[in-house]
């Protein structure tokens, strides 16, 4: 099966910023993204869990984005513009994908 090089970008960001991030990603030219729920975590700003929460404020989501390697910088710029002042982490790893025409 033929595969193609790609980058897998995973952005863990506060839930209230989800739409702003995905809008920025789309503007930066990504063809798609997937949002995974996050149930808890810990970092410099303390520990948290979604259990029993009503407000979206106390939670994060993970946005996974597969992109062609040459789009990496645009995407990171876009992501960073949203994440900049906020808590959350951005990681990038090398990946291969099937069906490169989709990215």
């Amino acid at each position: 099966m033929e595969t193609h090089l790609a980058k897998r970008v995973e952005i863990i960001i506060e839930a209230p910023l989800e739409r702003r991030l995905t809008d920025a990603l789309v503007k930066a030219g990504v063809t798609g993204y997937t949002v995974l729920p996050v149930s808890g975590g810990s970092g410099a700003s303390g520990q948290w869990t979604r259990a029993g929460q009503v407000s979206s404020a106390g939670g994060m989501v993970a946005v996974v984005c597969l992109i062609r390697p040459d789009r990496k910088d645009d995407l990171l710029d876009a992501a960073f513009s949203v994440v900049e002042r906020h808590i959350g982490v951005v990681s990038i790893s090398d990946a291969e994908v099937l069906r490169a025409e989709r990215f």
Partner: protein
Amino acid sequence: MADILSLAASNLISPIILSFVLGLLAALARSDLSVPEAVAKGMSIYLLFAIGFKGGVGVAAHGLDAKLVGTMVAALALSFLLPFIAFALLGGLTKLSTVDKAAVAAHYGSISIVTFVAATSVLESRGIMSEGYMVAAAAVMEAPAILSALWLIAWKGGTTRTDGGLYREILLNGSIVLLVGAFFIGAITGEEGLERIASFIVSPFEGVLCLFLLDMGLVAGRGLRESWRELGIGSVIFGVTMPLIGSVFGLVAALLIGLSPGGAVLLMTLSASASYIAVPAAMRVALPEARPSIYLTLSLGVTFPFNLTVGIPLYTAVATSIAGG
């Protein structure tokens, strides 16, 4: 005074308060008791729908009175004004940064709908009537305080993140839309509509409120356990003083408008309560540097239990004796 105490005592041993205490204790003892997020959100949707609907039916039944406009204006004014008082008080009592102070101030200018619901439930159990449109006042008071907080930051030379989207998000916040929407549905369908769904939104209401407060206790307790160290004594004093100050403003407004004693209790409660849903989400977007460990812990861990246990019976006693009970 004895009256207040007995009111407070009888209020304290209600299933509602005790459920909150149970949640609080369970969280402080690190029990793994927890309510799934989806269930908590489901109960919150139920409570907002029920309280909005019943408010609307109240308006349909008793008609709009002239005080309605006054109440809405007062609600708007209180929500804009209270953050400034909170900000000043925080300046005197704490060493918090400007950003933290503004964020806390926004919470105290806004309202906690569960505190409001708990107050209506106390009123009902005492047979005290109130204006149906107080629910609309609650909706009106959700958002304006956020603007005051942003203005405070700008005034102090700070920067906020306020794209156009933010204002839409604040205004069309799910809880406001549901509360106002249910209010209109109630007002349109009236008693007849209520009758069709009363065994859903009226009879089980207080029971659902118990479970919801159990969850609030769990969340508040977890917050306190995680963050109490960050709260200075000054902040805690603020957390119990500000509701009292707020309630006085609410009382004065109620007297000026001429609200019924029940209406006065609710306006006092709204003014005294602090947001824990809409404002925190807005703060994460607009003031990301403000610390949730301060504003959420104060609002949910200090002021919410204070109002639930001491505040509401106090406001009820004061309003019924002053506004003529």
